[in-house]
């Protein structure tokens, strides 16, 4: 199979890629079939409603005693008449108007209250307590009951009822807006806007509202449906004005006349059902458009690929513990084309050595490490290659075999120690869990070993840390805990993915010391994925430099540093700020003031 080359964008100064420009929610919605169909049906309803006084031959209040219960297709009564001799078509079309006016009033009030107070409550910490209480209070009202009880106040006018219902709906909008606003207020660009001298009103309207808009639009579609439902429900119960036609009152009338002519019941029920379904499906479609559909897993049968791998020109390296040959990892783009992010990586690791996998972001170094571990995301596809551990193929091995390998022979130390510990459980219980799984020891034995390991990785008060929750220990401590977990099964290969990047330099130095000590004690091999050449110089005997998914240079660390061959390696080494030159030019202040005044 031919894998197309990944599109290469020069990192710096190059003209940006021609990615799709800004697209409004509306334009994006036009690409969703579901949104188009349901949106069109809703629009059709609106048009029919607007023509309510044009299409039918009769008005909706005209009751003729000479034409009771006329059937479907009668002259001037296309849908027949009801038990009072009223035109069903006319009443149906006017019901549409009632439904949309209900939705409009209910949703407008909900949006007005919810968005306004959501923005205020989300942005101004001090007001939040008040708005929170107010909206929680609204949520405690029993909705329908309240609307019925207030009938004497609203005089049965469904518009007032819907206005009150809008207030009852507002907490839903308030919560969405408040949550989004709190999240956006913490973004640095809002801080930058403050520093730029923007007023709070401008920050809210320009920076916050644009983010809040999408989810609110989606919620609005659902709320519109729910407002129509409630109005219909009340009318069906017979609460409110009998004069205004609505789906609810029509269904109610038809229901009472069910044995005479069931169609009188079917028409309004059908109209209401379709409208409601459209609002819900339209809302769902908008949400999919807004959030993007979850990618569908397309895992390839890697076993077949690995088995078919041609290794004729290759002499198996007997001293190699882990051998990666021509590994390719790709992802399917939105256009259906698989783009490789790792393009034919070959890497040999011998017993007891430390190999650095160096590269900038996007070079594919972490993907390579994940590929070896067999923990690539499900969307990833192994496009080619082979991974031999102790001469045995592990690429495409069954999950059971891999699990055993990962717990035993291969271990992993992640980049973000904190996010790799479950905040709900104590450090100790997580370690014990891992040890039981990987070594098959009993709980007491595992606990003993966990304490010994914590002690071994240089944690001063092992017992205290064992009983601590992750948030109670520092980042450096958390990384020691994870290293303790990784070495529990005495692995032969330790894959450390940027193990010190999230840590302070003083802590980094200690962690590197620890890794070095552990290596000499257990004799394990380490693959260290990093972007930091200082770390490589400190701990790696050999290194491989990755660029755009390929290894461009590999060799003994000292040789590569002294005499880099590939231009990319040379460029990277030249970019390192050297250790001795200090800024020598004086502050340019005096000069600048002079020119500014001139």
């Amino acid at each position: 199979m031919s894998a197309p080359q990944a599109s290469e964008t020069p990192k710096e100064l190059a003209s940006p890629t021609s990615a799709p420009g800004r697209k409004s929610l509306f334009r994006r919605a036009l690409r969703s079939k579901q949104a188009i169909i349901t949106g069109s049906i809703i629009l059709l309803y609106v048009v029919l409603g607007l023509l309510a006084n044009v299409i039918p031959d009769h008005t909706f209040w005209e009751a003729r005693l000479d034409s009771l219960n006329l059937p479907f297709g009668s002259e001037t009564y296309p849908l027949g008449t009801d038990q009072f001799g009223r035109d069903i078509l006319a009443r149906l079309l006017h019901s549409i108007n009632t439904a949309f006016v209900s939705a409009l009033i209910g949703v407008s009030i909900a949006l007005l209250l919810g968005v306004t107070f959501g923005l205020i409550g989300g942005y101004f910490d001090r007001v939040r307590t008040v708005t929170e209480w107010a909206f929680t209070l609204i949520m405690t009202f029993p909705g329908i009951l309240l609307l019925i009880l207030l009938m004497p106040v609203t005089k049965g006018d469904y518009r007032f009822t819907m206005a009150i219902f809008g207030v009852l709906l507002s907490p839903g909008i308030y919560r969405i807006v408040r949550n989004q606003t709190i999240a956006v207020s913490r973004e640095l660009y809002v801080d930058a806007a403050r520093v730029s001298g923007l007023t709070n009103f401008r920050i809210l309207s320009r920076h916050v509202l644009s983010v809040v808009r999408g989810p609110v639009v989606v919620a609005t579609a659902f709320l519109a449906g729910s407002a129509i439902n409630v109005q219909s429900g009340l009318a069906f119960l017979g609460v409110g004005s009998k004069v205004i036609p609505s789906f609810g009152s029509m269904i109610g009338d038809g229901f009472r006349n069910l044995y005479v002519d069931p169609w009188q019941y079917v028409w309004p029920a059908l109209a209401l059902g379709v409208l409601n379904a459209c609002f819900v499906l339209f809302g769902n479609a908008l949400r999919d458009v807004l959030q993007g559909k979850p990618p569908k897993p397309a895992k390839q049968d890697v076993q077949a690929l690995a088995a078919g791998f041609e290794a004729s020109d290759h002499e198996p390296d007997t001293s190699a513990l882990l051998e990666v040959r021509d590994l390719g990892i790709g992802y399917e783009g939105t256009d259906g084309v698989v783009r490789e992010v790792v393009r034919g990586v070959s890497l040999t690791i011998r017993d007891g050595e430390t190999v650095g996998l160096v590269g900038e972001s996007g070079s594919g170094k972490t993907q390579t490490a994940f590929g070896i571990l067999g923990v690539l995301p499900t969307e990833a596809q192994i496009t080619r290659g082979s991974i031999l551990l102790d001469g045995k193929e592990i690429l495409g091995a069954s999950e059971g075999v891999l699990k055993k390998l990962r717990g035993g022979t291969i271990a992993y130390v992640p980049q973000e120690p904190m996010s790799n510990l479950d905040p709900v459980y104590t450090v100790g219980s997580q370690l014990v869990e891992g040890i039981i799984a990987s070594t098959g020891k009993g709980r007491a034995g595992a606990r003993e070993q966990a304490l010994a390991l914590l002690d071994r990785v240089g944690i001063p008060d092992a017992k205290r840390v064992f009983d601590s929750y992750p948030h109670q220990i520092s980042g450096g401590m958390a990384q020691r805990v994870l290293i303790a977990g990784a070495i529990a099964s005495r692995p032969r290969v330790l894959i450390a993915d940027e193990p010190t990047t999230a840590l302070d330099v003083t802590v980094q130095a200690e962690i590197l010391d620890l890794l070095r000590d552990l290596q000499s004690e257990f004799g394990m091999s380490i693959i260290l994925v990093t972007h930091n050449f200082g770390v490589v110089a400190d701990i790696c005997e050999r290194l491989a430099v990755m660029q755009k998914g390929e290894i461009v240079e590999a060799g003994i660390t000292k040789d590569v540093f002294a005499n880099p061959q590939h231009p990319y390696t040379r460029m990277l080494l030249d970019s390192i700020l050297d250790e001795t030159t200090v800024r020598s030019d004086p502050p340019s202040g005096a000069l600048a003031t002079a020119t500014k005044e001139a």
Partner: protein
Amino acid sequence: MPTAPLLKARDLKVSYPVRGFRKRPIEIVHGVDFEIAAGETYGVVGESGSGKTTIGRAVLGLASVSGGTVEFDGRDISHLSPGERRAMAKDIQVVFQDPYSSLNPALTVGEIIAEPLVVQGSTPKDARRRTLELLDSVGLPSDAADRLPREFSGGQRQRVAIARALAPEPRLIVCDEPVSALDLSTQSKVLDLLLDIQRRTGVAYLFVSHDLAVVRHISHRVGVVYRGEIVEQGPASRVTLAPDHPYTQRLLLAAPVADPIAQEKRRADRIRLRDEQRLREARAGAA
């Protein structure tokens, strides 16, 4: 007589409120003193949680000052009203660490850069002209103005953030770890850009970073923050190459050199220093 400093912090203390009824705020910065002259770079170096970022935020008015003063051009700016603070926007600007969350993804680069100009009363036409100038001065093509931030790499985004900061021609820019989220090769280019801009415009930097090498590269003077206090400050050459304070010494020797042979020596030095310091602490404890 030396000229008056552009920015002067005296016994600056910063506290963050704690959620909950009648909880006492936590003090992050415990009284620091420093000065920045016009056109000078003052580097603030420290580890996570040391309070270095908070110092920058206090100068920007994003964190509330609980004690001491911050003077800008001889005027106390530590407790300004929101309106007065907004007026400071033309003098003090910021470049944040994360070039991803510091640009609003919904606005075009042109709108982002023009925003501070527009709120200060520029006409749209002037703002547009100035935006193009600024894009040019940070080394971005002029067609960048009509694109969205997500179409740019981290380094390019940071250039956009720098252009935004330069827009009102400020006299001080607070740079909060502006290069630490960038790749190595991009990092040195952005630093060079910052140096170049300073030489051209005479803007002063308060440059916050955890990386001693970066601070050494760009700063005239350096202050080392440790647990909310400045434990050592002085000319960059002395503080970053031959520090006096034990913490700065540890910091210097902990950063690995990108040279296997030099790093081996540095590692040995670090371990020797660590043992010495432990011994001294033990003695002090015993005494």
